[in-house]
Structure formats: structure tokens, C-alpha cells
């Protein structure tokens, strides 16, 4: 049995409080907010729309472009405005996390732009961003096979836990009088219906068995998340 205790008292398979809402950016064709605790993302979708310049157009399918960025004041130490190597990479993996569910061949030569902005960050922001973007794409009426859900699974100390925080990401244990990092971050995006992963990253150190355990927990958690996403979309009715 694992002995690690989560600082906020959560069970290993418990996420922080999740909030989800669609229609948060009026001007966009679709939009949504998604948060894990205080990690909060908003996403806006524009398109499918005309793509310029013409040489970017693909006659076989619609281009999907995702842009991820953080508010400078979403983190403790101010983040300079504008893209960084980190945000460029996250934008790229977010695009491939979302594209498998979209019917992009329905709009040849066009483009769908997805803008994800992190309002406040306490780890798992790329996952909150993917969840918000998936909702925003559905809200924009884009044909898709299912919603994509994402969560960061961690191996913290000796436990596999769901939806890790910044504090857990920085978890250290004492060994031979030295502090060593004992946290592994494994963000993943799951297509629950197809039972496939469309995003998988890992920073840290795990065995193959631990990774399998992490993916199992990821799948289980994403099943819960997708229900919350569905409810958020169904709520449009009450407005």
C-alpha cells in the first residue's frame, strides 16, 4: 500500500473541484471555460473559416490550429507576454490531442482556430486547456466523434494520483540527507469512446507497470470528466 498523503487531503483518484461552462466568449463561434481547482482555462473557437494565405490551404481537409498561452499574472512569477518554447510545444500537442475526434475533411481549404488562455495556473493547465477546447469545439458545432478529456496523472512519492497540483509536482523526499525529486507528471488526453490516448507526456521516473497503472487511472478519471463536459453542454438549454 502506498503511504503518500495528498496535501489537500484528496483521495488518490480524486480530482480537484471541476467547473465547466460553455459560451464564455460571445464573439467566438464556440467557447468554454474549464477548471481543475484554481487551474482555469478559457478556450475560444473561430471557424471553420477562410484560410489565408492560400498556400496554407489543404484541399483534403480543414487546418486545425491551436494556440495555448498563459496570462502573465496566472503564475506566481510574472510570465512575459507572447509565445515561448513551452507554449509553442503545448499548442502543438494540444492540436494533435484534439484533431483525431474532428471531422476535418468536411471543410477542405478552411481553417479552425482554437485559442486557449490560462487565467490562473496551479499545474495541469494543458489538460484544463484541452478540456476547455474540446468543449468549445463542440459548442462551435464542429462535427466530431466524441469529446476529448484530459487529466494529469502523477506518481507522487509512492502513489499514483489524479489531477496533480503545483505543490505535488514539486514534491521531494529526503534520501541520505539529500532532498530528491519524487514527482512524475503524466498528462494525458483520452478518447473515452474509442478508448485511445491522443496526448501522452511524462516527466520524471516510473516503471512500465506504474505507467500502466497511471493510464488506467487516467482513463477512469476522464470518464468522470467527460460526464461533466456533457452536462456543461446540455446546460445551454437552461439559459
Amino acid at each position, binding site marked *: 500500500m502506498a503511504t503518500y498523503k495528498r496535501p489537500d487531503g484528496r483521495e488518490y483518484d480524486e480530482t480537484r473541484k471541476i467547473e465547466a461552462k460553455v459560451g*464564455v*466568449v*460571445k*464573439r*467566438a463561434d464556440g467557447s468554454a471555460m474549464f477548471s481543475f481547482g*484554481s487551474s482555469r482555462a*478559457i478556450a*475560444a473557437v*473561430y471557424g471553420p*473559416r477562410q484560410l489565408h494565405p492560400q498556400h496554407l490551404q489543404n484541399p483534403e481537409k480543414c487546418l486545425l490550429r491551436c*494556440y495555448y*498561452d498563459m*496570462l*502573465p*499574472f*496566472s*503564475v*506566481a*512569477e*510574472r510570465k512575459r*507576454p*507572447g509565445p515561448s518554447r513551452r507554449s509553442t510545444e503545448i499548442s502543438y500537442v494540444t492540436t494533435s490531442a484534439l484533431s483525431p475526434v474532428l471531422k476535418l475533411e468536411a471543410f477542405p481549404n478552411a481553417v479552425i*482556430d482554437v*485559442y486557449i*488562455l490560462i*487565467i*490562473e*495556473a*496551479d499545474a495541469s493547465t494543458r489538460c484544463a486547456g484541452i478540456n476547455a477546447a474540446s468543449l468549445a469545439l463542440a459548442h462551435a458545432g464542429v462535427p466530431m466523434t466524441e469529446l476529448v478529456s484530459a487529466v494529469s496523472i502523477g506518481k507522487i512519492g509512492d502513489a499514483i494520483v489524479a489531477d496533480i497540483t503545483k505543490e505535488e509536482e514539486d514534491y521531494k523526499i529526503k534520501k541520505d540527507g539529500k532532498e530528491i525529486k519524487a514527482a512524475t507528471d503524466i498528462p494525458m488526453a483520452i478518447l473515452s469512446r474509442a478508448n485511445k490516448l491522443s496526448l501522452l507526456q511524462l516527466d520524471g521516473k516510473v516503471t512500465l507497470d506504474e505507467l500502466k497503472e497511471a493510464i488506467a487511472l487516467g482513463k477512469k478519471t476522464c470518464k468522470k470528466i467527460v460526464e461533466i463536459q456533457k452536462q456543461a453542454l446540455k446546460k445551454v438549454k437552461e439559459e
Partner: protein
Amino acid sequence: MEIAGLTKKKIEEMIKEGKRMDGRGLLEMRPFEIELGISKKAEGSARVKIGDTEVVAGIKLGVGEPFVDSPEDGALIVTVELWPLASEKFEMGPPDIQAIEMARIVDRSLRESGYIDLKKLCVKAGELVWTVFVDIYPINDDGNLIDASAIAVIAALHEAVFPELKEDKVQYGELTDKKLPLKNMPIVMTFYKVGESFLLDPTVAEEEAAKARITVAMTFDKDEVFIHALQKAGDEPLEEREITEVLAIAMKEAKKVHEKILRQLK
């Protein structure tokens, strides 16, 4: 879609008669709403909604060497990012002239009104001063971003506190309960000229129909009103008479806006 020629004509026609598409008077603002503390990671932050327009602003503090010409003054850096999340008219890439101009207008309004007492941001004269970073991000553009940004910044500054400082290093994530040294709150108002009339708080369609605009930043001292910053923009030149008339209106309307802001900050 940029507004069609005939919608533009219609807006001009209506404004000539003192009417607006949404039924407002020419100087009537849409109701606005301030929400404080939208990011706990910021030293201060706020969201402002004016109609469908939404802007967030946040304050971060850092320390550094002062400028040579003002060794005892803190520094102020205002940035606006017009991210395409907020409008199909914005584009990815480095800040364009629209973003830079907005940031400069807000910067001058804060600086010249003395809202932040930069003298009190000195840690060690000539060696270490606080830098106030103001970051502004529109979330949804339905017009009047300049005034909305100014209100968001004022609210965020009003809420802001210093972070902990230990051995000349900022302890990020550890906030004190010491507020920023603030004095005279500036009120920023932008008037848009459509046809021969001026109006406040335009929607995007009204902005597109406007040929000129003028922004004014003001403070009050009892019954006196002072002008601290002005910016005339747009292709059409203005007559002196028009400018003084608009400023007279601004001075009257500013009090109402000031009261509305104060009410929501309490």
C-alpha cells in the same frame, strides 16, 4: 465581417438623430460590472464587463535597479495583448499599433495622474525599487476596449498588495496585506465621433463607423477636475470648439463613472 456600407450609413443616420441601435442615449454607457481577484497568483487582478465587452487585468510586482534619472522612483510597465481569442479582427504575432497605443494611453493615464505613488515604491534609493507590471487582456471585444481596460487596471491596482520581500528578493506566492500606495484615481473616457456627434462606450459596429476619437484621463480635487492625458486619434481632424465641448461633457460625466467604480470596489 466588417460592417456593410449600409449598416454604417444607418448608424450615422441614427446618431445624427441622437439615437443608437440598442436604444441608448449618445452619452449613456452600458452597465458595467467589476469582479476582483480573478487570479490568486496575481498581486491584484480584476475582470470588467461592459455590455458584451470583457477585459481582464492583472498586477505583478518585481524588484530591480531604478532608472538612472529617477533613482528613488518605482517603475511602471503597462502591456496590452490583443489576443485573437477576443475577436476575429485580432491577429497572432507581436503587439501591433492598436495594442501599443492602448497600453500607452493607459500608461500615461496612470503615470500622469499619479494614481500609483512611485516615490513610495523605493526600497533602497539608487539601488532597489519596485516595478509594477500591469497586464491587460481583452477576452471579448464588443467595443470601448480603452475605457474598459482603464477600469480593469484601476480595479486591479486598488486590490493589489505587495508580495513578501526577503534579502532583496521577492518571495513569489507569499503576499503581504500591505496595499499599493495609491492616490488620485484617474477616470479615462473615450469619445467617438460619428458623423457630427460624439458618443461614449461604442459597440464594435459604432467604432467602425467612427472617423475620430479622443481619450481623456481626469482626476478630481474637490470640485476641480484636472486633465492628465489626452489622445486624439482617427483620420478626421477636430475643431477646437468640438474638443472643448467634449471635454466639458467628460468632466461632468467622469464623476458618475467615478462613483460607479467606487461603489463596485467596496
